[in-house]
């Protein structure tokens, strides 16, 4: 008996930056491994079933408790199939599942740390704030951007850092960000290197200084500490703090082999500032709760939230000045600056980072395909597909002022020659990416782009299950539990009565025990059968006609579709899908999982955004207007 095995899950998100291009780990391994979750027992399935209920917006989309209970009792969709145990009585661990945390998180279930405990709850009252940690470590991306903006250096120190942990699909979870293991060492090393570069590179230091050092070293250093310290700490230094740095400056002569006493003093000051908790942690201490249990954040705290939300970076002088002038103390002032930040080039990085993580674009990297079936595919094609999706999103959001529906339904895209060939475009293309219009009858938005289709497929064959699971989990926020571990995930071969991949999936998931999940998963997956394993349009599968028809439950109604384009348009028009997009942004923007107390905020945001066609820039502005963005709640999260 062949052991049921998942292949190696890909590394966690941070690690994927280091993933070798030559790895065999296909992106769909990740999905696969999630399907082969370790057998964690009935208790965990029950736990998930309970979690299904928690978030108001997800409740309608959850697998029913009854079906989950059934799954737990019965061993899941795959119970009783040949191969579910193997190897002479040794139950085969079909659960090669390093990604289990990630998988669980994606199902809206993390190990009790997502803050979403509580009773199922719709909005019943007023939008409020949810408690956050008083200190939140910069993510590595935020660290890099901050250093780049502070010093004007094109450096990426975090390439050598221990990676950030990923929680619930995003790597910026406030609770999970800590400084342990070797990260303190990494920070010191980066601080020493950056400080060395700043004083050694001609012009870099001069650009930072508010004065010429020959005006009197200490006086100039004092003004540097006060001015630049405000940039680094994102608030004015206290007198005590400033005095400490000036004292450090003054005692620095001889600490380095090279440099003038002034340069040495600045250098050691920078080493310290870059290791300061006031730089590495976003600190929010506002605690004036005279009006109920909500304390308004002060202007600098708002400025910091704004810039890290919209730029992934530290506030600029203008934003700090606005904080000082009290311009950020009311929603209107915040909106003004939010719009200013959104108009800046740096905002593109945040929009890109969110969509990278939500759409799991790292799966498009290192994609290998069967070279006999797809001789023109190479891993560079996957990278091109990633670039396509990034440029598509950027174009929709920033150039077209588009909204959610456009992301899911636009037939325009941005392609190079590799992709043009897959899309069947005629004309002259080369390595450059150019805007194109695709056939609207064949393509509609993100889900019909090469990247998604190719990364949710095997080397030769498509994978309707992976595609269907993605639609449910990422696009619709349907809570679908991972199956039990002791399953055989092998599809039957295409022979006999089984002509197509659809036939194989239907046969494999036909047992009653599978119906709870696969009744949801399969049909949206089959919609994409009109595209092969690299995302090209096809009309036959294995020489047999395709069946891409199906139905899906959207907004409490069963929606029929003929194919993926029909499905994509249905999703684009679906309230469930819009809410899911919002919730993903909400997690990312607030650096935490939503809780029952967020119900009213989410409801208000949804209404606001529905009135604005779910324009993505408006969505970001709206995030800055919420109570939970502007206030701190007393108590610990």
């Amino acid at each position, binding site marked *: 008996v062949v052991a049921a095995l998942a292949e190696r899950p890909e590394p966690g998100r941070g*690690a994927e930056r280091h993933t*070798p291009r*030559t790895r*065999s780990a296909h992106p*769909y391994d990740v999905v696969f491994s999630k399907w082969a979750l370790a057998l964690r027992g009935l208790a965990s399935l029950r736990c998930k079933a309970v979690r299904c209920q928690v978030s108001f917006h997800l409740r309608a989309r959850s697998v029913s408790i009854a079906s989950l209970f059934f799954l737990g009792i019965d061993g899941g969709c795959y119970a009783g199939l040949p191969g579910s145990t193997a190897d002479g009585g040794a139950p085969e*661990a079909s659960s090669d599942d390093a990604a289990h945390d990630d998988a669980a998180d994606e199902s809206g279930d993390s190990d009790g740390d997502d803050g979403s405990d509580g009773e199922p709850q719709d909005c019943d009252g007023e939008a409020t704030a949810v408690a956050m940690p008083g200190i939140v470590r910069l993510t590595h991306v935020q660290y890099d951007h901050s250093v780049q903006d502070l010093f004007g250096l094109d450096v990426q120190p975090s390439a050598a850092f221990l990676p950030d942990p990923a929680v619930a699909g995003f790597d910026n979870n406030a609770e999970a960000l800590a400084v342990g*293991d070797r990260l303190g060492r990494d920070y010191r090393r980066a601080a020493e290197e950056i400080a060395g570069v700043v004083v050694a590179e001609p012009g870099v230091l001069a650009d930072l200084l508010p004065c010429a050092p020959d005006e009197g070293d200490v006086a100039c250093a004092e003004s540097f500490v006060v001015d630049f310290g405000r940039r680094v700490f994102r608030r004015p230094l206290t007198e005590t703090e400033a005095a400490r740095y000036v004292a450090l400056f003054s005692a*620095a002569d001889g600490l380095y*082999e090279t440099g003038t006493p002034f340069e040495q003093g600045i250098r050691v000051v920078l080493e310290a500032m870059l290791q300061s908790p006031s730089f590495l942690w976003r600190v929010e*201490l506002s605690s004036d709760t005279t009006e109920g249990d909500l304390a308004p954040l002060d202007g600098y705290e708002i400025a910091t939230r704004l810039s890290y939300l919209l730029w992934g970076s530290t506030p600029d002088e203008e934003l700090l000045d606005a904080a000082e002038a009290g311009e950020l103390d009311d929603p209107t002032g915040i909106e003004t600056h939010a719009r200013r930040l959104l108009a800046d080039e740096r905002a593109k990085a945040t929009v890109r980072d969110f969509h990278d993580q939500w759409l799991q674009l790292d799966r498009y990297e290192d994609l290998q395909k069967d070279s006999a079936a797809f001789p023109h595919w190479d891993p560079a094609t996957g990278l091109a597909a990633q670039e396509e999706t990034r440029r598509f999103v950027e174009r929709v959001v920033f150039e077209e002022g588009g909204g959610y529906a456009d992301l899911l339904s636009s037939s325009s895209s941005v392609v190079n020659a590799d992709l043009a060939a897959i899309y069947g475009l005629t004309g002259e293309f080369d390595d450059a990416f150019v805007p194109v219009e695709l056939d609207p009858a064949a393509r509609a938005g993100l889900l019909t782009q090469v990247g998604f289709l190719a990364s949710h497929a095997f080397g030769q064959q498509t994978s309707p299950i992976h595609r269907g699971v993605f639609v449910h989990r990422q696009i619709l926020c349907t809570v679908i539990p991972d199956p039990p571990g002791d399953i055989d995930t092998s599809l039957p071969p295409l022979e006999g009565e089984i002509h197509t991949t659809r036939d194989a999936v239907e046969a494999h998931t036909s047992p009653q025990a599978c119906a709870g999940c696969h009744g949801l998963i399969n049909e949206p997956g089959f919609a994409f059968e009109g595209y092969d394993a690299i995302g090209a349009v096809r009309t036959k599968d294995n020489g047999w006609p395709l069946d891409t028809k199906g139905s899906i439950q959207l907004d409490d109604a069963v929606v029929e579709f003929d194919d993926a384009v029909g499905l994509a348009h249905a999703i684009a028009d679906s309230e469930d899908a819009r809410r899911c997009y919002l919730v993903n942004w909400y997690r990312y923007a607030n650096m935490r999982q939503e809780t029952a107390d967020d119900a009213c905020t989410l409801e208000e945001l949804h209404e606001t955004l529905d009135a604005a066609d779910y324009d993505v820039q408006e969505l970001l502005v709206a995030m800055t207007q919420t109570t939970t963005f502007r206030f701190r709640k007393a108590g610990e999260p």
Partner: protein
Amino acid sequence: VKPPQTMSRRLFLRGASGVAIALPFLESLAPRTARAADPTPRRFVAFMTHNGVDMARFRPTAMGAITPATLAGTALAPLSDWASSMIVPRGIHTTPPGYTSATPGDEHHKGMGHRLTCAPLDPSTLFATGVSVDQVIAQAKNPAGAPPLTLNVGPHVDGVYAHSSYLGAGQPVTGENNPWLAYQDLMGLAGLDDAQIARITARRESVLDLLEGEFGGLSAKLSTADKAKLDMHLTSIRDLELDMAGTLVPCLLDAKRAAELEALDPTTVAYDENYGKIGRMQMDLVALALACGSTAVATLQWENSVGGPIFGWDGMAHQYSHHKLSHGNTADDNSGSIVAGYLDMVHEIDTWYAGELAYLLGKLAAYTETDGTLLDACAVAWLHDMSDGFTHSYLDMPHVLVGSCGGYLQAGRHVQVSSGNPAGQSDAGHNKLFTTIMNGLGMQADDGGPVTTFGDPLHCDPGELDALKA
């Protein structure tokens, strides 16, 4: 086990910078008496690979004396030069046990998490619930409680599959996969002149003094949970004062090798194409760290359980990752066809790793110490996550030991660890391997006697593997 040597870390640094420095850095603080009594400290290295092996062709072809002839044709053939230094123990099973046990995790989880801890996994995180043997050894044997050297080859991955070393229950240590960063830690201030050392020490101390003021001020304003987070941060930077500086000789590679490490691109150290190159750099560092006395224990973890790489060098041209080959299937979901000759490929991988281990042994043997070579003072253990990869077995683990640990072990034998059982029968938990090694290293139990236990008592019987001892 004795509690770790304690010393005010602050004092440690002040001592280093406060004395009139005429000695190599930190020598003034080195435990001289220990050195005098133990001129050749004994060391432990764990060399760890994953996804099991091709058991049929792994071990010597006969029990008893290991010779080049009994290694011929096996995966261990590249170790022929070290035949007389090797011990191939038979009849050791991983404990807590694998699939017959109700403890949490799948076979790969258990193979990783149990390997250095002998403790079951936490049901929710799947991380091990105990401290790992390398950390225990480091606490007992390292100067000033310095940490063990913990190195990886390959990508950083979250979760139990990618972690071997544990500071304690649920506290995995991520191995450093960048040799240049590891070397900088190891090097510390070695090779610098006194004035340079004084400058670096003085400025780091100045910075730390300032930071401690800032941390203290901030901490006072925080909630309990936030305070704990900030304390962890401060502790980690205080620990930086314990750079793993050498206590025997300066921890320096030759300049050419050092330059090669420095030239590494941090974004590509985990690439498959660099696997062998990075591995050898890491092994150079393992040997250096042990030789210079910065640590008595080092772990080198190659890739991860359920991992790769795709071997495409040294005569191998595999299309599938190591883990895929361990199950012999072309498709990621095992729905493809059997890979023709997959066991041969697994055997090639096993043999390749044996060659890399031979490289490490060569490096260790190249350091001469008072009573022989560094290798003589070592117990090097090649430890696996499972025996047969296809079936995920935890029985009759194909571990290999090299070195006599200063004469404590009787090398050169393919030996059943306990008499009375047919070869291959599992009869000893692998925790006893560690108690044996800890005694080889000269460690003591709390009562001053030999170490008798390691690991979770529910799953670990006391005792050593007497059959391994000289």
